[in-house]
Structures are given as structure tokens and as C-alpha cells.
């Protein structure tokens, strides 16, 4: 395994924490991992970005160029990063905040109501990062759920563990749901193809 992941959005969405948790989960999974981030006062309120590389072998260069998996949680981030994805890669879009997605030829785009779920199903908008993390883990299999849950528990502020785990699980479920949908769709497609062929 060698996956390069970019989480992008705006300051305050907690993407750096999400990146750290994802990276820590990879450590729990016994993998090599590296996490980098955009940082500093210039980032206050502005764009925010975390990058994670998870691999089975030692990672030399730590920066993510064109990514395998991209999460975009704001329109600005989407415009900037959605297209920087490998062919066959994955772009996860928070459709609550992102209205239009540029052409990402060759990659799969999954639109999820991430912030909406945080706001309404978890009840705290700030947990959108955990919903997103759950979705990423669920869709792209970046970490085992056990490792990810352990990392969430250990890294979020004390007293907020359950809330964040709830968000994370909702994200996972959302991903599963989509996966099931997709499987169904694929099946339908295959049926259609099959029928076309006849």
C-alpha cells in the first residue's frame, strides 16, 4: 500500500486534526506514515490543508503532489485541489459547502453531505472533520476502523470522545451506504451492459 491523501478546506474545520488522527491510525495499523500541513498565522481563517501518506514501506519524500485521495470541504479548496488527483483516484466532496466540482477526469467523485450530518445528526458542526474522516476510512479503506477509533479517542479533547466517535461512525456508515449504493449501481450497470450486449 502507498496512498497519498490530501484533506483540504478552511481554517477552523479541524482538518489538521483529522489528518493527525488518520496518520495515527496508520501507526496503530503498523504502517509507515507521514503527515504534513499548511501552517501559521497567514492560515488564520484562510485555506487549510493536511496531507498524509500511508505506506507499507519507508516513505522518502513527504510532500503529496498529485494525490490518491482528496477531501475538499470548501469551494475554494475544491477549486484548488480537486483536480490534483491521480487517474483512478478518489475525490470526496462535502456537498454542504461545495457547489460545483471541476473536471477530475479519471477519478471518482463522491459527494457527501458531511457538514450537514455533523450539524444535524451529530448536533455539532465542529465534528464535520470526524464525519469526513469516517467517510474516508469507510470509502478508501485508509485504516482499519479499530485503529481509527482508537486514534480518535486518543487525540480529541478530553470529554469530547463520544461525540467525535459518533461523528466518525456516522461518516463510516455514510460511506458504507454509498458503497452499497454504488455496488447496486454497478450491478445495475452490469445488467444494463449485459442487456445491451444481447
Amino acid at each position, binding site marked *: 500500500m502507498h496512498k497519498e491523501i490530501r484533506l483540504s478546506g478552511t481554517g477552523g474545520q479541524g482538518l489538521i486534526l483529522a489528518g493527525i488522527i488518520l496518520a495515527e491510525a496508520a501507526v496503530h495499523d503498523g504502517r509507515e506514515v507521514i*503527515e504534513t500541513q499548511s501552517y501559521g498565522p497567514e492560515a488564520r481563517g484562510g485555506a487549510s490543508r493536511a496531507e498524509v501518506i500511508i505506506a507499507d514501506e519507508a516513505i*522518502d519524500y513527504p510532500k503529496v503532489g498529485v494525490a490518491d485521495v482528496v477531501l475538499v470541504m470548501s469551494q475554494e479548496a475544491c477549486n484548488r485541489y480537486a483536480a490534483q488527483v491521480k487517474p483512478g483516484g478518489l475525490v470526496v466532496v462535502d456537498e454542504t459547502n461545495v457547489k460545483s466540482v471541476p473536471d477530475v477526469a479519471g477519478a471518482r467523485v463522491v459527494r457527501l453531505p458531511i457538514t450537514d450530518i455533523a450539524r444535524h445528526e451529530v448536533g455539532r458542526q465542529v465534528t464535520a472533520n470526524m464525519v469526513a474522516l469516517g467517510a474516508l476510512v469507510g470509502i478508501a479503506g485508509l485504516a482499519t476502523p479499530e485503529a481509527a477509533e482508537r486514534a480518535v479517542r486518543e487525540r480529541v479533547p478530553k470529554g469530547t470522545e463520544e461525540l467525535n466517535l459518533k461523528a466518525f461512525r456516522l461518516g463510516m456508515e455514510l460511506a458504507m451506504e454509498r458503497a452499497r449504493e454504488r455496488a447496486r449501481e454497478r450491478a445495475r450497470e452490469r445488467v444494463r451492459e449485459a442487456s445491451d450486449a444481447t
Partner: protein
Amino acid sequence: MPSKAGARLMQGNEACAEGAMAAGLRFFAGYPITPSTEIAEELALLLPKAGGKFIQMEDEIASISAIIGASLAGAKAMTATSGPGFSLKQEGIGFASYTEVPCVIVNVQRVGPSTGVPTAPAQGDVMQARWGTHGDHPIVVLCPSSVAETFALIIEAFNISERWRMPVVFLMDEVVAHMREKVTVPDVSQIAVAERPRPQVSPEQYLPYAAGEDLVPPMADYGTGYRYHVTGLTHDQTGFPTTKRIEVDALTRRLDAKMRMAAPHVTFVDEILVDDAEVVVFAYGITARAASRAVRDARAQGLKAGLIKAKTLWPFPDEHVRKAAERARAIVVPEMNMGQLVREVERAAAGRARVVGLSRVDAEPITPDEILARLREV
């Protein structure tokens, strides 16, 4: 009180702090500056737990001064800063060097000169780390290229500093400082920790600046009965000021010789595929990571490339360069500056191989592709 053994995700700055604790750090004085602040923040938390002391001083000059005082009082001591603060510490570094007081100075490099881009990476302080203070002052400069290396190398920094009684500069860059990687913290019992040589004689017989064969004078802690004098004036073996030619000469030359004596023990260089290499990259810090990928890619493309990864920048590893220059066609030196260590590589290569710099100064790290391209050109 090093942290729990085992694999952990750590930030570079955190690894620096944790590694320092593992090395026996007991006093830290600093003044906040991006991108080094997390080191101080971490130590503010960790030191008192181990009975150590943390203090935020009024500026960087006070910080370097305080750690020298603390070291004289017997504690392993460190400060951490970035470019502007490193410039301010230069006078103090010279004092520590001349009086042979062990201490570690961390400089997390950012874009400079002056305020520059505080949050962006560069490697512009490499020459300053060697030459920043006035007068002749041999100094050891170490430079990690990963988080795990940061943890391990800062321990070496302390060990060198204590063993050889000299300040050690620990030169990080913003990328290494802020990225997080897996670090496998060894068990305490696995960590070799050096202590400064302490006097084996009675106070009456103690000559604080008389060195033995290793050219390192034993050092007494203040308050332990050895009432001796320390001064930044040129001093003789007794530690008192002198202006006698022979003694002025002796001090400078001993410090120089001590560094030459220490050199083999403090020079950490990884050679990767250098033996049969036609083209060699000389790299350090975060740039060495890109270089390592570039070398792998070059080999994959059939180009016999190799990498000299310097973890010790000073004393400059002349020998490694000289040997590589004898066999290779060219040496490429990628740096996030306008060309600093490339000058040393040129000097050490002495015309035996072509030496080609590769500068990037736009606040972004050099990529493997850039290095690869240069390797293919030369």
C-alpha cells in the same frame, strides 16, 4: 524521563523535545518563534514532570545566556529558536564555544533573511550555523531529515555536547519540524546517554582548562566545591585571563585540535549507492528525502546515481565528498538556499568532479523531479 517506548506518531518539534528529554535535558530557556515554538511548548509541559526547569526569557540573548549558566550549574541545557533568534544568539554561542560549556542550540530554519516568511521552509542558515559568531570557533552542526532521525540525532547532539564540552547546533527545517511521522521510541535502557567529563581530582588540584589526551578539560559543576573561574576573555589552563602570546595561541589551537579529534566521532553521513555512482547527490535535511527518491528513480531509469546524506554538516564531511569526487562524474547539491554548502562541496571536490548546485528559494521544498532532472543533465 523519556517518553514510553514503542511506535508513536510524533511531530518533528515534538521529537526534538522528547529526544532531548531522553538525552537528559533538565533545563530549557527560550523565546518563542515560529516554526520552533512547539519545542518550547512541549518542554514547558514535560520538564517539570521530570524535575527539570523551563523558563521563557525576555529574549533570545537571555535564553542562550541562561542555558550556559544552567549548564555551568550542572544541568544539561538547551534552547530553541529560528533564524532571527539564531542571529541574536550568536554572541552567546561564541561564549559557550570559547568557555567550552556544553549546550544545544536548536535552530528551525525558515525563509530569510530578516523576518522573511516565518511559516515556510528554507535551508538558509547553514553557513551561519558555522560562521555566525565572531572569531575562530569550531562547532558541530547536526541536521535531521525525518522525525525519527530528529529523535535519535538530538540525543547525539547532547552526547557530543557533553562528551566534548562544546555547544552543538541542531539545524532543523520547517518541514521536518512540523511534519508528523512514526517514531519508534526505544526503551530507556537502549538509549546511550553521555555525561560531561567531571574532575577526578580534588578542588585544590583542579585546573579547569587543563585538558588530557582527548583535549577535553574535565568540568566541575558550580556549587560542588570546585570554586573556579570562567571567562570569555582568552584564558589559560587555570581559567584566568591571559594575554600571553603562547597561551592565546594555545587556547585557539587546542579548541581547533579538539574538533579535529572529535570529528570522526561526530560525523554522521549516510552513503546510499555511492560506491558505483556516476552522479552523486549531496543533500541534507528535508532535501535529502527528495534526493533519496530522486536517486531511486534515477537508478530505475538506468542512471547510476548515489546519495551522500549528511546528518553532520559541520565539521564538513570533506572525506566523503573527496572520495565520491574521485569516482563520480558530477556532484549535485540541491539546497533550499542560493548555494551554501555547495561551496564546501566544491572546495572538497577540488576540481576532481563537476559540482553543480540546485537552488530553490520560493518557500517550497525541492522535489524529487527537480533533482532527477539535474542528475540527468550533468
